[in-house]
């Protein structure tokens, strides 16, 4: 049997692609190496706690009034989920400075900017307008057309700008730009590397489409997606680790580790693009290696999952997110993130938003630290356990000292994920959580504009390492967008 499409990997992008193809009556097979779907979006249980590996900030979902692209696609797929809106409710600490709060709404956030520098609110209004214009221009591009320069002058004006330069040009002060960049870790690129177009597309989601989190666990969402996929005729095989993709003929041959092989007219990969060219495809494809070598693999990191045996109110945890930066200047901060045990991290307390996050009178706290260089390179395998513990130990202490909150004595369960964990579960090259870094001419805008130039016969990519970047929304949108292209519709 020859499938129309074989999809390698049941991550968000892969399942999304699968649903869209199956809805359109294509014969589709997903091959997933694990025994569950979801990839980086998953849930694991430890004791009485269920920890979600992702989904602490789902962009572009929104609510009933602010319908995000992700919500639109899921309703097209007829996948119904319950979500909670993530409020503007963070606290931020920059080393050697006072903490500040981001509370209320984006509008209130802007009012606070005015306090830092007179005139900032005005500039923020300008920025919001530019952001909308860029979003509209982008929508035209995604439909396969070219926006007219006279209609979208500011899109063209800023097309070649990095975010930090554009923000200065708009007139923001350096202090205000720092405030505007607190979300940079969500994208994984500092403002001097991030294209202003990408920055605005991100900001547009943040301002106009509310961020959400799932009301249930990640795994519930993944299984809903898969159920829908199967209902519309899609097939998935688990425990199917793809080790070879033979691209020689019109009919592609996909082989798995357990000795099975499957045929398809087209292969869609929801795994690291780099992994595919490095390990899965033997045939040399023109220009592919040059492009790979020109790109930068995204950051990896350590995530510490804590199950605490007290409710968050009694622990004194009142914010959804706790940030700590060495400096709020992202261009500089990234330099500090090249070694183990640096002082930049994010902590999430899902219970603040979602009552169902953990059992009664308990709290989940997730601490995440990201690395921008190969800090794990010198780790001998027998030092690994100790190192993992030491990192967790110092992060927990730093959290307690920074925010004067005791958590250590309430730790009932602890789990630590490292780049090795991520790579083992997802095959992501270098254990990255971001796909490729958005950087220079490899921002999402460039990937989208060059999509046709870089197309390969019989092979496509979806997911975080494809065109839109990382995040649940980007992965699902990529699956939808790219399969629509394959199906020949706008």
């Amino acid at each position, binding site marked *: 049997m020859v499938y129309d499409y074989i999809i390698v990997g049941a991550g968000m992008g892969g399942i999304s692609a699968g649903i869209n193809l199956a809805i359109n009556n294509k014969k589709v097979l997903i091959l997933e190496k694990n025994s569950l779907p979801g990839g980086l979006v998953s849930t694991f249980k430890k004791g009485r706690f269920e920890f979600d590996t992702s989904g602490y900030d789902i962009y572009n979902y929104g609510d009933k009034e602010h319908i995000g692209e992700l919500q639109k696609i899921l309703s097209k797929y007829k996948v119904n989920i319950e979500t909670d809106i993530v409020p503007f409710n963070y606290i931020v600490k920059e080393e050697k400075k006072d903490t500040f709060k981001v509370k209320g709404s984006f509008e209130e956030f802007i009012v606070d900017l005015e306090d830092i520098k007179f005139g900032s609110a005005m500039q923020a209004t300008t920025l919001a307008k530019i952001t909308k214009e860029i979003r509209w221009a982008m929508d035209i591009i995604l439909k396969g057309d070219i926006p007219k320069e006279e209609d979208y002058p500011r899109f063209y004006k800023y*097309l070649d700008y990095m975010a930090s330069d554009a923000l200065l040009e708009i007139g923001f002060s350096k202090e205000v730009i720092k405030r505007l960049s607190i979300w940079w870790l969500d994208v994984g690129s500092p403002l001097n590397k991030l294209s202003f177009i990408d920055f605005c597309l991100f900001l547009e989601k943040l301002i106009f489409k509310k961020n959400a989190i799932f009301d249930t666990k990640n795994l*519930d969402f993944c299984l809903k997606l898969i159920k829908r996929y199967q209902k519309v005729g899609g097939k998935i095989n688990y425990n199917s680790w793809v080790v070879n993709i033979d691209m020689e003929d019109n009919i592609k041959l996909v082989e798995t580790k357990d000795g099975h092989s499957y045929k398809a007219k087209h292969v869609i990969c929801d795994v690291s693009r780099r992994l595919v060219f490095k390990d899965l495809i033997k045939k040399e494809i023109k220009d592919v290696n040059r492009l790979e070598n020109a790109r930068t*693999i995204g950051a990896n990191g350590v995530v510490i999952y804590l199950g605490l045996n007290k409710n968050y109110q009694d622990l004194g945890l009142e914010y959804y997110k706790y940030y700590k930066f060495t400096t709020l200047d992202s261009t500089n901060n990234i330099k500090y993130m090249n070694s183990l045990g640096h002082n930049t991290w994010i902590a999430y307390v899902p219970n603040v938003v979602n009552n169902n996050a953990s059992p009664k009178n308990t709290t989940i706290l997730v601490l995440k630290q990201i690395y921008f260089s190969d800090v794990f390179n010198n780790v001998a395998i027998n030092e690994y356990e100790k190192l993992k513990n030491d990192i967790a130990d110092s992060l927990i202490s730093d959290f307690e000292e920074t925010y004067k909150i005791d958590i250590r004595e309430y730790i009932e*369960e602890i789990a630590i994920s490292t780049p090795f964990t991520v790579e083992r579960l997802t095959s992501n090259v270098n254990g990255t959580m971001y796909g490729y870094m958005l950087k220079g001419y490899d921002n999402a805008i*460039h990937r989208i504009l060059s999509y046709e130039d870089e197309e390969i016969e019989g092979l496509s990519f979806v997911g975080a390492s494809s065109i839109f970047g990382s995040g649940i929304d980007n992965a699902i949108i990529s699956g939808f967008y790219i399969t629509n292209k394959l199906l020949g519709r706008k």
Partner: protein
Amino acid sequence: MDKIEHLREERKNIAKTYSSKKIKDTYIDEVTKEYKDVLYVKVKKIIEETNDTKSFILVPDIEKGIKELPPFKAGQYISVRMFIDKSYTTRAYSLSSSPGDTSKYRITIKRVPNGLVSNIMLDEVKVGDGLTISRPTGDFGYNSIRDEENVLGIAGGSGITPFMSLALAINEGIENCNLTVFYSVKTEEDIIFKSEIEHLNKHSKKVKFIITLTREEKKGYLNGHIDKKMLEPYIKEFNTVLMCGPKTLYKSMNEVLGEFNIPRKSVHYENFFVDFEPNDNKTYELKVIMKNDFKVIKCKSNETLLVAMENAGIKAPSLCRVGICGYCRSVILEGKIKMVGGNMEKALLENDYIHPCISYPESNIVLRLDI
């Protein structure tokens, strides 16, 4: 429009300046590739611990491509895989050696009456034989971030094995806590690691084993089941309790620990057994749908779906065999089962996932197993 063209050209031009050489693995890629789920080992030495218990020293089987054994944490277990009369099965055994020495693993096996694997291990396996095992896994053990410095170990019978590993780790400075193990056995003859325990008791400042005999009175040992009075002198302001042994031990210990007001967060168990006695004695039909094949087999009401599949020669995956690790998870398409114990994500339960290792049939079953 020209600007868009320009961006596309720039991207192309930049790529042209880069090498066309194939991308190399990063260090993390290399290490991950070396990660093996299945290990081949050889039995280097067999030690008779008691009348019904032997220790096996396992070393890497170099001829089968295993150069070294992965590191482990004290308290973890390996799963031994065996083919017995065309059927495939596994058994989980805690490592009893020190995590400081990964040139070898030690497992210690007590004879189980009518036990399929333990009897083969004790009666047939010789020095020089090859074994197939999983990599070390499991969460049981001491965790310096989660746990208190004063650790009470409660061990029954062969449940002493993970504590021996932990005691050795503490003695070698790999773990840092004060460990007191209450070790309950029937008679003096049943004491596993007797000389090692005596040695550690004499030489280690941080490790202490206290042995109690439940079926005889003898000098030098406590007598009777572990109770409040025995534990009292060793309870500090903050304690962590680790337990490994039969379920009856956990039950009686929970009552005892309740009297000391030790919070739930500070008590951890290693699950060893699945206790279940079905009411009826029926045989059901079990249809196993695999990736490219299916098989219809028999499954008795007193055996788990996993055991039924193994007996029928289906190579169903398994590791812990007590419903915790999730390695065997499958989807039940038709029929009714009873799952005994285990720990499963809510979303999986709601979506008809089961752990065959703890599932007993209550009707004919159709199971999806992606192998």
